[in-house]
């Protein structure tokens, strides 16, 4: 029998028999310019099959003077969510297209500036689930806007905008769970948009 790869080994089970899993996101997202993340603070932790330890997280801080930017929608709506599409490359590697949907509305200069940046740039997106878990999408390769139609009259004033990994630059990993430098403070960091701005 051939030797199984360590990274392909299952080492824990899952018990979904009792409680219904979380199924909804808070209707807000924090968008982060990839260049604002301080590389010296990045820590990605993956499963270690040799030690039978499960981890799938990322910890980071932004550079001094930088902040994430919060996009918010009505809490009763369903515009904000995250997910991923899994496929396999020609070489057999698993690859993941990360997706995050947000809501942008209006035709003023402020909303046009946001849309212009989203269309041209590549961003890391943080979303928070109702159980408090913060999930990071597009960590390595970033997310960009796909094709969309912006029609405020037909769309009730705004349009859901889907940010996705580029087809030719999918992620090699699932979306990471965010872990704060201060244990248990993931919610506080998300609520502060991961800001590292010093207030005078």
């Amino acid at each position, binding site marked *: 029998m051939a030797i199984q790869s360590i990274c392909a080994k299952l080492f824990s089970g899952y018990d979904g028999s009792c409680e219904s899993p979380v199924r909804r996101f808070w209707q807000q997202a924090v968008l982060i310019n990839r260049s604002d993340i301080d590389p010296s603070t990045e820590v990605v932790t993956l499963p270690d099959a040799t030690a039978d330890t499960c981890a799938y997280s990322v910890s980071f801080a932004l550079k001094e003077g930088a902040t994430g930017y919060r996009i918010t929608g009505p809490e009763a709506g369903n515009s904000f969510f995250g997910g991923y599409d899994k496929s396999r490359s020609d070489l057999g590697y698993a690859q993941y297209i990360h997706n995050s949907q947000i809501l942008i509305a209006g035709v003023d200069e402020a909303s046009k500036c946001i849309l212009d940046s989203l269309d041209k740039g590549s961003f890391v997106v943080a979303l928070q689930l109702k159980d408090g878990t913060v999930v990071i999408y597009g960590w390595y390769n970033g997310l960009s806007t796909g094709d969309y139609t912006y029609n405020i009259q037909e769309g009730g004033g705004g349009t859901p905008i889907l940010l996705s990994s580029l087809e030719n630059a999918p992620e090699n990993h699932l979306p990471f769970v965010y872990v704060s430098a201060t244990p*248990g*403070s993931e919610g*506080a960091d998300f609520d*502060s948009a991961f800001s590292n701005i010093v207030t005078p």
Partner: protein
Amino acid sequence: MTVKELVAIEPKKIRSDSELMRLYIEFYKDAFSIEPNCAGCTFRTDFYKLKKSVTSGQTATKIIDMGIYKLNRKHGSDILTYRKDKKPHRIYGRDITDEFAENFLKHGTKKEIEDREKLFEKLPKVEKKKEKKAEKKSDK
């Protein structure tokens, strides 16, 4: 505080103090594996039940850390932030730990720390140590 110390306090004082009531419920649950359904309603009988259990030696002594720092309750929903090595460290006031509080009152400008101290109801007693140091210096 240990459960022996708690049951030595006058029941009226425990009943009127939310912090002591919280400790009482914790010790009660520890001793009998169940929380009182209505802690205030059955306090009198339950308290004497706990006291009897402790004095007869049936309940093991447990120490609950009351915390060195106590944040004013009205700041429970505030996000407290300090910066160390140019990186922010945050926590919601309601989740604050002694370790975070110590760093919160250590890393910052003099003005920031003075303002932060005002957020707390209880701080470690450093004044007596300062007085003792001053006394030692004057003795010399």
